[in-house]
C-alpha cells in the first residue's frame, strides 16, 4: 500500500512537472522585424574586459576598463552610429579581469557606474543625473579580510532610484549592498545564499522597488553548475535552483516582464543533445517556475542576456556557434506576443565576440544595445552592436499633476491628466511615494481610468509640513489586464502659508528696519511716549505689520487686513516675500481691545487668516504720589559707568495694563539735577522692559552715559525713572537717584593674543 501511494505520489509530481513546462508556442514574427542596425569597435580602448551597457530614454551608456588603467563611460544617442570620447571616472588598473565596470540607469534616466580597483581591493561608484555631470567618486566597499578579492561587480538601479551593487569573492557566495543617499553610504554587504558563485551575479529591477538576482553556482551533490534566481524579500534574496536538469547550466541574466513576471535566461554547457540550448525560466509571484528551451543545440558562450523594454517587448541576445562560427544572436517577444521571433545574427567579420551584455531603449524603434569583448589577435576591444525591432505599443500614460504646475495648494484633491497615452487604458491605480502594488495603493486598487481625473490627496500629505515634495506613481492597464509600467510625476504640495507675521504695537523697537514704503501713517497720531512697549498695545489707532515669507515655497503673494473676515481691505502686494509698515487701523479704533484680522495669500492659492487683538491705550499710568517706591543706583566697581538700578515698593496704576500696571521703565541720565523731568527737553528717555512681575526688581548694566553728550567726567550722575504702560504711555510721576563716580572706568573686553 505504501508502495502504491509512493507511485501515485510520483505520478502527481510528474504531472506538476509537465504543467510547469508549457507547450511550445508558435513563432511570433508579426511585424517585430528584429534586425542588426550596425556594429562597430570603439577606438582607443584596448585590453578591456566585461564591458557593460545601459540605456534610458534615448541615451545609451557603455562602460569598460581600458588600457589596464581607467574606468570609462561612453554616452551616445540610442540610434547614433558613433561614440564620442569617453569620460574617465576613476582608476581601474591591472589585469582587466579583476577591475571590471558596470553601468545602469535609474528610473529618472540618471546613469550609475560601479567599478573595481583590484590594487586597492575597493569598489567605487559614481552617478550622473539626467542632463547633469558625473558626481563625486564614492567608496562602496573596501575589502579587508585576506579571503576577499572583489570581482565580477554589477550594478542595477531599483525603480525607487536606489542603486544596488553585487559582486563576489572567488570561492564564496555573492554579496549585495545598496545606498539610499546618492552613494555616500552603503549598507553592510548581505551574503546571497551559501553556494560559491561562478562568473557574474546579475541583478534585475522590477516594479515597486523589487530587485531580483540570478547567478551560477556549483552544486556539490551533483558536481554540476546550476542556475539560481530569486527576489529580495526586504532582508535577503530568497533564491532557488531553477536549472531544468542536473547538468551544467550557467551565465544567467534576469528581467521583469511588463506583467511583473521574473524572467531568467541562461545557457546549457552542453553543445549537443536534449539539454543544449538557451533556456528561459519565468515565474509570476510565488507560482512555480516555468521553463522553456529557447534556442536549440549549439555551442553557447557567455551570458544569455534578456531585458524588457519600456514598451514591454522582451529582448534576448546570446553568443553561440550554431554552425556558422560564433555569432551574436538576437530575438524579441513583443508584449502582446506569446513567443520569440526567429533569431537574427550578426556576422562575426571582426572576430569572436564574447562576454556580451545588453540593455534596451525605446524611441523611434525598440533598440537593443549589445557590448561585448572582441579579440582581434593581440588585444581585446569593446564591440558594440545595435539591434532594433519595431517598437511595441505599450500600455502607459504619463501622469501630469495639476497641469504641470510645480506647486499645488492645499486642496483635498489634485487634478491628474495624462500625456503620451499608449494603448487603451481602462483602469488605473496610484500610490503616493511608491509604486502601487496589489497590496498597497492609495486608490483602493484598480479604478476606472479617465483623462483628466481628480484624485484625493491622502491625509498624510495634507498633514505634512508646507512645501513637501511628493511623487505620485500611477499605473494603467487595459481591459485584458495588460499592464503598463508605473510612471510618476512630482509636485510640491504647499499645504499652507509658511511665513513669520508680526502684528501689533507700532512703537516696538523690534520692528523691521526696512519698511515697505506704501502706506502713510495717519497724520493725527499723537506724539510722545516711549519707542517700545508691549506688542499687544498701541497708544494711537495704528499698528505695525511685519511679514517675512521667504520660507513659503510658492511665495507670499499678498496681505490684507480688516477688523474681521467681512471687512478685509484690498490686498497689499508683497515684494520680495516681505512686508513691513505701520498701518492705520481699519475703521474706528476704540479704547480697549480691538480685533485685527490679517489675511495672507501665497502664489499656490493658499489663504490663511491670522487674528490679533490690539489694545488701544491712550491713558497714562499713574505713579503713586503717596508711596511711589524707591530707586537706588549703584555703580559697578569694575566699570563705573555701568550701574545697577534697584527698585523697591513701586506702586503704579493703569487702566489697561494688567498686573503691576506697567510694562517697563523710561530712564534718563543727567549731570545736573532737573527741576521737572517730565517737561525738560534736555533729557533723553530710553525705554527698558521691567523684569519679573513684582514691584521689587533691578536692572543691571544701565549706562550712565546714555543720552549724555561730551566726555564723561567723575562726579555726580542723576538718574530719573518714569514708568511705561504697554502702549508706551509714561507716568508723569518719577523716581530719581544719584550716584557719584570718583573715576570713570569703562567695560573692558579681553581678546585673545594673536602672535605671528
Amino acid at each position: 500500500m505504501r508502495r502504491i501511494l509512493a507511485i501515485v505520489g510520483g505520478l502527481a509530481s510528474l504531472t506538476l512537472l509537465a504543467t510547469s513546462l508549457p507547450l511550445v508556442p508558435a513563432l511570433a514574427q508579426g511585424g517585430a522585424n528584429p534586425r542588426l542596425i550596425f556594429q562597430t569597435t570603439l577606438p582607443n580602448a584596448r585590453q578591456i574586459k566585461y564591458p557593460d551597457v545601459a540605456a534610458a530614454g534615448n541615451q545609451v551608456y557603455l562602460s569598460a576598463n581600458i588600457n589596464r588603467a581607467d574606468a570609462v563611460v561612453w554616452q551616445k544617442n540610442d540610434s547614433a552610429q558613433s561614440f564620442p570620447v569617453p569620460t574617465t571616472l576613476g582608476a581601474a588598473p591591472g589585469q582587466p579581469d579583476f577591475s571590471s565596470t558596470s553601468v545602469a540607469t535609474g528610473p529618472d534616466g540618471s546613469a550609475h557606474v560601479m567599478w573595481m580597483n583590484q590594487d586597492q581591493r575597493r569598489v567605487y561608484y559614481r552617478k550622473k543625473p539626467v542632463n547633469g555631470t558625473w558626481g563625486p567618486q564614492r567608496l562602496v566597499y573596501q575589502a579587508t579580510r585576506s579571503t576577499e578579492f572583489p570581482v565580477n561587480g554589477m550594478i542595477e538601479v531599483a525603480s525607487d532610484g536606489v542603486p544596488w551593487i553585487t559582486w563576489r569573492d572567488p570561492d564564496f557566495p555573492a554579496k549585495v549592498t545598496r545606498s539610499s543617499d546618492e552613494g555616500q553610504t552603503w549598507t553592510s554587504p548581505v551574503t546571497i545564499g551559501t553556494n560559491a558563485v561562478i562568473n557574474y551575479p546579475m541583478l534585475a529591477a522590477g516594479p515597486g522597488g523589487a530587485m531580483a538576482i540570478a547567478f551560477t553556482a556549483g552544486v556539490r551533490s551533483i558536481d554540476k553548475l546550476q542556475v539560481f534566481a530569486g527576489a529580495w524579500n526586504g532582508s535577503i534574496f530568497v533564491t532557488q535552483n531553477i536549472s531544468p536538469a542536473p547538468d551544467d547550466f550557467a551565465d544567467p541574466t534576469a528581467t521583469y516582464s511588463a506583467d511583473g513576471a521574473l524572467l531568467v535566461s541562461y545557457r546549457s554547457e552542453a553543445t549537443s543533445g536534449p539539454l543544449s540550448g538557451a533556456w528561459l525560466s519565468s515565474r509570476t509571484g510565488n507560482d512555480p517556475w516555468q521553463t522553456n528551451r529557447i534556442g536549440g543545440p549549439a555551442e553557447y558562450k557567455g551570458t544569455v542576456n534578456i531585458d524588457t523594454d519600456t514598451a514591454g517587448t522582451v529582448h534576448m541576445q546570446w553568443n553561440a556557434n550554431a554552425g556558422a562560427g560564433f555569432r551574436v544572436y538576437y530575438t524579441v517577444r513583443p508584449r502582446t506576443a506569446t513567443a520569440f521571433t526567429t533569431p537574427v545574427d550578426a556576422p562575426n567579420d571582426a572576430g569572436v565576440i564574447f562576454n556580451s551584455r545588453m540593455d534596451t531603449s525605446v524611441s523611434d524603434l525598440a533598440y537593443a544595445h549589445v557590448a561585448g569583448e572582441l579579440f582581434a589577435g593581440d588585444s581585446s576591444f569593446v564591440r558594440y552592436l545595435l539591434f532594433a525591432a519595431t517598437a511595441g505599443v505599450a500600455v502607459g500614460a504619463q501622469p501630469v499633476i495639476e497641469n504641470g504646475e510645480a506647486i499645488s495648494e492645499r486642496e483635498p484633491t489634485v487634478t491628474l491628466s495624462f500625456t503620451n497615452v499608449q494603448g487603451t487604458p481602462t483602469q488605473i491605480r496610484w500610490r503616493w511615494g511608491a509604486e502601487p502594488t496589489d497590496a498597497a495603493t492609495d486608490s483602493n486598487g484598480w479604478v476606472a481610468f479617465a483623462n483628466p481625473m481628480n484624485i484625493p490627496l491622502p491625509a498624510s500629505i495634507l498633514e505634512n509640513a508646507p512645501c513637501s515634495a511628493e511623487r505620485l506613481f500611477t499605473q494603467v492597464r487595459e481591459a485584458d489586464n495588460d499592464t503598463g509600467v508605473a510612471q510618476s510625476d512630482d509636485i510640491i504640495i504647499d499645504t499652507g502659508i509658511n511665513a513669520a507675521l508680526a502684528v501689533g504695537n507700532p512703537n516696538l523697537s523690534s520692528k523691521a528696519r526696512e519698511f515697505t514704503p506704501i502706506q502713510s501713517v495717519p497724520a493725527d497720531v499723537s506724539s510722545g511716549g516711549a519707542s517700545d512697549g508691549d506688542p499687544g498695545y498701541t497708544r494711537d489707532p495704528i499698528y505695525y505689520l511685519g511679514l517675512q515669507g521667504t520660507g513659503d515655497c510658492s511665495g507670499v503673494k499678498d496681505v490684507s487686513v480688516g477688523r474681521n473676515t467681512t471687512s478685509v481691505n484690498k490686498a497689499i502686494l508683497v515684494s520680495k516675500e516681505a512686508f513691513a509698515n505701520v498701518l492705520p487701523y481699519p475703521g474706528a479704533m476704540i479704547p480697549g481691545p480691538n480685533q485685527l484680522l490679517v489675511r495672507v495669500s501665497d502664489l499656490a492659492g493658499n489663504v490663511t487668516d491670522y487674528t490679533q487683538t490690539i489694545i488701544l491705550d491712550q491713558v497714562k499710568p499713574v505713579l503713586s504720589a503717596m508711596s511711589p517706591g524707591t530707586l537706588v543706583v549703584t555703580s559697578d566697581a569694575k566699570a563705573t559707568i555701568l550701574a545697577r538700578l534697584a527698585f523697591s515698593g513701586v506702586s503704579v496704576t493703569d487702566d489697561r495694563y494688567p498686573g503691576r500696571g506697567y510694562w517697563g521703565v523710561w530712564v534718563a541720565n543727567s549731570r545736573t539735577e532737573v527741576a521737572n523731568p517730565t517737561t525738560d527737553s534736555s533729557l533723553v528717555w530710553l525705554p527698558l522692559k521691567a523684569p519679573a512681575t513684582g514691584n521689587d526688581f533691578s536692572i543691571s548694566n544701565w549706562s550712565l552715559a546714555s543720552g549724555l553728550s561730551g566726555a564723561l567726567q567723575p562726579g555726580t550722575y542723576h538718574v530719573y525713572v518714569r514708568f511705561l504702560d504697554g502702549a508706551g504711555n509714561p507716568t508723569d510721576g518719577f523716581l530719581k537717584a544719584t550716584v557719584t563716580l570718583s573715576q570713570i572706568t569703562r567695560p573692558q573686553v579681553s581678546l585673545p593674543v594673536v602672535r605671528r
Partner: protein
Amino acid sequence: MLGGIAALLAAVALGLALWQAPRGVAQEQQPILEYPEYPPTPTIGANPQPEASLQGTPLLSASFDDPAALTAWEVVDFDFVLDESRAVWGVAEGRLAQQNTAAAGNPSIQETAALTGAADWADYTAQVSFYDLDNGTAGLVARYTGADPRTASYYRYRILKNEYEATPKQVLEKVQGGVATTLVEQKGPGFTPRAWHVLALRVVGNQLTVTLDGAVVAEAEDATPLAAGRAGIYTRAMGGILFDDFSVVAP
C-alpha cells in the same frame, strides 16, 4: 474485475517507469527557436601525418589516440587567473583540443600552453599539426624552465590567423623571467583557419628555426641562448583549436 486489476497494474507499471525516469528526460523539450540555415560546416579532415623530413632521434611522440595521454602534459596559464578560469585542454577523437576555461567553459584570451618533456632537453625540434576553428592563435614553446609560468623562461613562436587585424602575424620570441624579447617578427602572412597546418620549432645551440607547412618562416640566432627545457604547444584559452601528432626529435 481481472481487467480492472490488469489496467491498474499497467497504470502502476507505467507510473513506476515514469517516476524512475531521470529528471532530465522529463525536461526534454524541442527548442522554440530554430537557427537560420547555414551552409554545412566544413568537415575536419583526417589528421595529417607528420612530415617524413623530421629526422633525428625521437624524444617524444604523441598522437592523442588515448585520452589518458594528457597525463603526460602540464597545462599552464601565462596570466594570473582564478581557479575557475584556468585553461582547459582535453583529448577527444584522437586530438588534443584547447577547450576554453574551467567552470562555465567560457573563452578567455589568456595565453596558455600544454607542456611536456624533460628539463634537460637541449637541442631538438618540436613539431605539431594544428587545425583552427575559431581560436586564431597557434604556437610552440621550447626550452621551457620555471615553476611559475608568469616568470618562466622559454622560446615561443606564435602565429595568428589571417583574418585577425593585428600585426605582426608571426613572432618568434625569447621569454626570460616572464619578459618577452622579440627575435623575429613578420607582419604577415598568418595562417588559414579550418585547414591542417604543420608547425615546427627547431632549437639547436643558439640557432632557432621555425617552419610552417615545411617552409621556413622564421630564423634567429640567440647570443645568450636558453640552455634546455621542456617543449609545448601554445595558444589562447579561447577554445576552437585542435592539435595532433606532436613529436620531438633530437638532431
